C-alpha cells in the first residue's frame, strides 16, 4: 500500500483525539484551551510529519507533541496572568469533567506537585501507562520517572490522609 500521510494523520487523530483532550485538559485545566492545544498539536504533527524518524510509535510521538503544546499553553497562561482561580486549585473546568469530593481532593493534591512529578503521576495513575512509554513521551529516563512517581505518591498520601485512594504500585 502506498504511504498516504493525510490518511494516516486522519486515522491517528480520530483514534487518539479524546485521549489527547483528556491529557491536555489535565494540564491546562480549561475546556477551550484544551481544544486549542489539541488543534495546535495536530498542526505541529502535520508540519513535522515527514521528519518523524520512527524512534517511537507514531502515537507516542504525537502524545509528546500534545503534552509539550499543553505545557506551553499553561506557561503562556501563567505569564499572562489569566489563570482562573479554579485552575489554581487544579480542578479541570470542562463539561466533561465529573468528580466527587475525593477526586477533586486528589486533583488539588496533584496540583501541588512539581511539574515532572505531576505529569508522571497523571500518566501512571490516570492513564496507567507503562514507564517505558512515559519515558518516551517526556523524553527522560525510566529510573528518574520511577523516583518521581515514588515522591509524588508519598506527597499525595501525606496530603490526603484519611482518604483511601487505591494508588497503583510504584513499579
Amino acid at each position, binding site marked *: 500500500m502506498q504511504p498516504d500521510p493525510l490518511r494516516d494523520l486522519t486515522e491517528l*487523530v480520530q483514534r487518539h483525539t479524546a485521549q489527547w483532550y483528556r491529557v491536555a485538559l489535565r494540564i491546562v485545566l480549561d475546556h477551550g484551551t484544551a481544544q486549542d492545544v489539541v488543534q495546535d498539536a495536530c498542526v505541529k504533527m*502535520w508540519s513535522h510529519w515527514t521528519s518523524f524518524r520512527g524512534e517511537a510509535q507514531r502515537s507516542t510521538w504525537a502524545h509528546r507533541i500534545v503534552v509539550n503544546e499543553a505545557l506551553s499553553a499553561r*506557561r503562556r497562561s501563567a*505569564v*499572562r496572568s489569566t489563570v482562573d482561580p479554579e485552575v489554581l486549585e487544579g480542578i479541570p473546568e470542562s463539561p466533561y469533567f*465529573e468528580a466527587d469530593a475525593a*477526586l477533586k481532593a486528589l486533583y488539588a493534591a496533584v496540583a501541588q506537585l512539581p511539574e515532572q512529578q505531576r505529569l508522571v503521576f497523571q500518566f501512571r495513575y490516570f492513564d496507567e501507562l507503562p514507564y517505558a512509554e512515559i519515558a518516551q513521551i517526556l523524553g527522560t529516563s525510566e529510573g528518574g520517572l520511577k523516583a518521581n512517581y515514588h515522591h509524588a505518591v508519598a506527597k499525595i498520601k501525606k496530603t490526603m490522609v484519611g482518604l483511601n485512594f487505591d494508588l497503583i504500585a510504584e513499579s
Partner: protein
Amino acid sequence: MNPNTESHSPRDGIRVPAEFAAELAARATQRATSASRRPFRLRPLVWTAAAAAAVFAGILLTQGPAGQPSAEVRPGLTVDEAWSALEQGEVTLTDDELIELAEQHGITQL
C-alpha cells in the same frame, strides 16, 4: 495508551463523548492540513533579519572615523545583538515567539 472515542470509566473523571471527540478530530485535522506553515517559515526569517541587522551594525563599527583602529568583526550573532535588534524594532516576533523567548530567559512578566 487507551485508544478512545469515548473514555470508559476514566480514573481522571473526564468522560469524553464520542460525538465531541469526532467533531474535535475533524476540526483538528482540517486546521492541520489547511494551516500555513507560517511559524516554521517565519522563525528563520526573523533570525535572518536579526543577523542582518547585527552584521550591518558590525560593518558600521569597522568603518569608523579614519585613523582610528577598526572594531573587530564578530562572526555570527550573539544573544545580546539579537535582543538589541528586537528592542530597536529591527525585527518583530509573534506572540508565541515572544513568549518562548521570555520563557527561555526566565522573564515572567511581559
